[in-house]
Each structure stands twice: as C-alpha cells, then as structure tokens.
C-alpha cells in the first residue's frame, strides 16, 4: 500500500494537461475510458459491488430461494452473543499469533541465508520455492498422506524406529491439530517470506557492515544494530502479509479438518463458509465476512501506521 502512495505522488502527469473542452482533452478522456473500462467493469462487478453487497446483506435475512427481509441489526447482535463466533475468532487469533511466531524467525533466517553469495545457496533458494508452486489443495493432500495415522510416513517412523511420539492422530486431536495446521501453513509460506527478507537484506548498503566491522562489532551486535533495524520495513511487510493471510486462511483447514475435531480448528472464514453455504444463512454469514474484511484492513492500516507510512516501499524493493 505504500507502493501505492509512491506511485500516486512520485511524478507529474506525463501528459501536458490540455484546456478543458479542447479536442485533445476529449481524445485523452476517450483513450482513458477505452483503456480502463474493461478492468473497471470486471473489477466493479466482482470486487466493488460485492463489498457493498456484503455490508448490505449483513442487515438482511436471506437464503437465496426465499424473499430477502430487512432485519436491521439483528444479525449483528447475534454475532455479539454467539459463542460459536467468539470461539471462531479465538481460534483465528491463535492461528494468526502462532503463524507469525513460527514463520517470522524462520523466514528471516532463511532469507538472510539465501541472500548470501555462495553458489549453492541460489540452488537451495530455487528448491525452497517449490511449495509455492503446489496448490493448497495439493499441499493439504500431500500432508494428509504423510500424517495419516496407520500407513503415513510419520507413523512408519514410529513403528520401525520406535519413535512412539510420532504416532499421533495428527489431524484429529483437539490439543494438537491447530499446531499441525500452523506447521503445514508455515511449510507453504515460509519460502515466500524468505524471498521478501532476501530482497530486504540485499538493499542494506554494505558500507554499514563495513562500519560495524571497523568498530569491532560482534556477531550479535551486528545483527542487533545493523541487520535488524535495516530490515524493519521488511519485517512490517512480511508480518502484515502473514497476519492478513492467516486471518483469512481457508483452503488447507477446509480440506484437512473441516474445522474439526469438534470446532477446535474452525476459524472465522470456515465458520462463515458453514453458515453461508451449508446453512444458507447469507445474512449472518455476511456479518462474519464483514468482520473478516474489517479485521484484515484494520491490521494492515495499524501496522503501516505504527511504522511510518511513506517509507514502506523500501521494504518492498526487489519484490515488485
């Protein structure tokens, strides 16, 4: 979003602005309309209208077949007294926090590792990115195979190497499954965030490391006083993507657990899916959808605010 502000403000209009009403002005306007309207139409129909529509639906009661009724704030007050929704919020929050805690250090370490110059590291980096090519459906099914209790890959270790702690009901245990999901999601997304950190590391001027060297900085000091502060916008970018991403995370959880066992992994997006598409309560599901969107946007704005708006693009260099 900072890229946004820079794009908007960086340069003057390339086209000298013609007088209002002149033929040239009409040509430019026509060209703008021709160039932009396909995107705007598609975008308006499938993004802008749905956003407005979602807010509208949250004040109605509707199951697509019957008539649409205006119910005012009934859905919203239901949300505030619905233990299911509160639990879903809590699970979502856990997923966000644990994902951030697991992914951030790993991604940073790996990003700095693949920013190194040795040849083998770029080979490693190429392989690190493989999870990003797999569809989330593919990743879910692959892990289902690895984790399946009797014939899965981990179960084999537990039987043949006597590592009995590996024989767990990984995807069906109320105390464990959420963490398993966090690990699988980390497996999928750490490489992507490592890519962001790699780009961030490569924008740090070598002079800073030179200076630290001359000052006789130690291992920890160089990391603490050079690398980490220089990476702060990268950390913000990556954290924002982790937080917003895991707030709305759906695919892998839907495929692997459907929210179970019980409701221990039923995150907000899954609760919304169940409410909307299984119970066809589109009004109430829209409340959950709006909450999801508002949370995501709020977190993004908060993080940008907390760290300085206009400077964000430095953390993005090399990414876009």
């Amino acid at each position, binding site marked *: 979003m900072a890229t946004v502000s820079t794009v908007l403000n960086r340069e003057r*209009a390339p086209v000298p602005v013609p007088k209002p009403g002149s033929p040239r002005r009409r040509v430019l306007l026509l060209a703008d309309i021709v160039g932009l309207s396909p995107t705007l139409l598609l975008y308006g129909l499938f993004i802008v209208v749905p956003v407005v529509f979602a807010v509208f639906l949250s004040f109605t009661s509707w199951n697509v077949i019957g008539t649409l009724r205006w119910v005012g704030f009934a859905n919203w007050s239901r949300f505030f007294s619905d233990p299911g929704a509160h639990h879903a919020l809590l699970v979502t929050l856990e997923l966000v926090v644990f994902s951030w805690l697991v992914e951030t250090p790993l991604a940073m*370490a790996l990003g700095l590792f693949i920013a190194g*110059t040795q040849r083998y590291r770029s080979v490693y980096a190429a392989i690190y990115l493989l999870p990003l090519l797999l569809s989330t459906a593919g990743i879910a099914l692959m892990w289902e195979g690895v984790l399946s209790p009797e014939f899965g890959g981990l179960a084999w270790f537990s039987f043949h190497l006597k590592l009995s702690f590996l024989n767990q009901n990984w995807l069906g245990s109320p105390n464990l499954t959420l963490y398993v999901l966090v690990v699988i999601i980390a497996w999928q997304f750490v490489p992507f965030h490592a890519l962001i950190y*790699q780009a961030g590391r490569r924008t740090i001027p070598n002079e800073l490391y030179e200076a630290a060297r001359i000052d006789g900085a130690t291992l920890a000091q160089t990391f603490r006083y050079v690398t980490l502060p220089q990476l702060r916008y990268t950390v913000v970018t990556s954290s924002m993507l982790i937080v917003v991403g895991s707030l709305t995370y759906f695919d892998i959880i839907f495929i692997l657990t459907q929210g179970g066992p019980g409701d221990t992994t039923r995150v907000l997006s899954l609760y919304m899916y169940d409410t909307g598409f299984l119970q066809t309560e589109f009004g109430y599901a829209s409340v959950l959808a709006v909450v999801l969107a508002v949370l995501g946007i709020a977190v993004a704005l908060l993080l940008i605010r907390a760290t300085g708006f206009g400077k964000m693009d430095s953390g993005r260099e090399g990414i876009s």
Partner: protein
Amino acid sequence: MSSTSLTPPAPEAVASRPAAARVARAHGGRTGRAGAPGASRVARLIAFVLGTVWLVIVLLPIYYMALASFRTQGQYLTGNPWLPVGGLSLSSYSTVFSATGLGTDFRNSAVLTLASIVIVVLFSLGAAYRIVRRGSRFAAVSFRVILFGLAVPVQAIIIPIFIIVVKMHLYDTLIAVILAASASLIAVAVLLMVNYVRAIPRELFDAMTVDGAGEWTLFTRLVWPMARPVLAVVSIFAGLGAWNNFLIPLILTQSNSNSVLPVGLYEVASTSQYGIDVPVVMAAVMLSVLPLVLLYFGLRRQFVQGLGGLAIR
C-alpha cells in the same frame, strides 16, 4: 519494477583483521551471510547445516508424495514409505486418467488458466498505460478505486460473488470462475504493470508524439513492446493464481464437467471410492504440479518476480 532481488550483491570487501573475521562469522552464523573471504569456516558450516535442514524439510513431504505415487495401493500399504523398495508401479497414474475424471479437470484448469492470463494481462496493461499517462482525472480516480481492492480478501466477498453469479445465470460455468478469478488477480496485476510502464522514459512518449503518434499508436508501438518482460511476470502471477485457485471454483461450480484441478483433487480424496487410495491421490497431485515445475525451472527469474506479486496483495 526493481530487479534488486535478481542482481547479486556486491562482493564483500576482503576482511583481514580479527574484528572483521568476527563480523563475518556473525553473518555466517547468525544472519547466514557467510561467503565473505575471511569468514570463519565454522560459521559457514553452521549456515550450511541449517540451510540443508530446511532443504530436507521442504523436500521430505514432496519425496514421500512422489514415492507413494509410484505404487499401487497394495504396495503402499505394505512397503516402506521412505525407500523405493518393495516394488514400484505406474498404475496409479493411469488410474488418475482412466477412473477419476481428473482428465476433464486438467482441461478445465488449462482453459481457466489461459483465459485468466489473457484477460488479466490485456486488461491490466491497458489500464496501467492510461494510469501512467494520466490524461484525465478519470484515470486517477480509477486507479484509487482499483487500489482499494488490494485490501479486500476474496473470502470476505465470496457470498455476494456467488449471488451475483447465480443472478447472472452463470452458476456452474467455467466463465464465472474465469471472471471471478481474473477480478481477484487484476488489482495486483495493475500495480505490477504501473510500476513497470512508469519506468518507460518520458522522452520516448514525447518523441513519438512529436512524430504524430496518437494514443493507440503509443500503446501498440511503444508500451506493448517495452512491457514484454513484465508481461511474462504478470502472466506467471495470474497463471499460478488461476491454476491453484480453490475457493472460487469450489463455490461457483458444482458439476463434474466444470470442475477444475484443485477442487477435483479434493473431491477425489474425499469420496469414499478413492479416499483410501493414497497413491492415486498422490499421483494426481504430482500431475497437477508437474507443468508448473517444468515452467519454473525454465523461467525461474520471472517466477520469482511473479511470486513476488503476491507480496502486494
């Protein structure tokens, strides 16, 4: 379009003093930046070991899946899941095509992906060109509207999208999936394109305008040819997004004839007939990722930038 991530950093200055060696060690061990002359061998070794551990973590499940896919159900249940002993077979791959109906899903996914790429690339380049030219206020306002959508997660608007698609009588059609998937990708594509088109020197626009070129000629003779590299990047970004999309086709389609790969994989795995036949599921996943892996090793640079497009979503 910065290419920082693709250019190797300047070689580290030669470190010869003890303090320098310590710093270099710091990079090797703590920040993983070994490789500087004088960096301690221990630090480089630690970085190598930790990097290799992650490599193994990445590859192990993929290896497990690959091995399982080359087995029959019987071999899978009795054999060692981690070593290629106890018999291998290609029968799961033929089952994927003969019995699961995934052949149709492959075709649908290919159509979805190609159509989405064409729509996203053409629409976003046209839009980016006008946004960068900024010939009228309309362009500036449009850009702000498009950017607003970067913050909207698809999950939050999937219900209205579903209703709109039903009302347009497009439910359970590939067209609906193509349009919705393209719409969900286009904001990022526009931003990538704008960043790139913006970098075309203004002098080129001016020179062509002086020569009498109109807006359309500028687009076809200047912007389109100059934008070739970013077209590949946006194509990969859009292609990955469309090929791997799960939620949109899950909600917007129903019948087998309109099913796409990720949803088809999920259905194959969750129906009772194949739910227990892990090798068939693994073979299907392998086949679904194969085209991407081949493309990836051919076009790594563009892939890395295309994947980076996800960062501004």
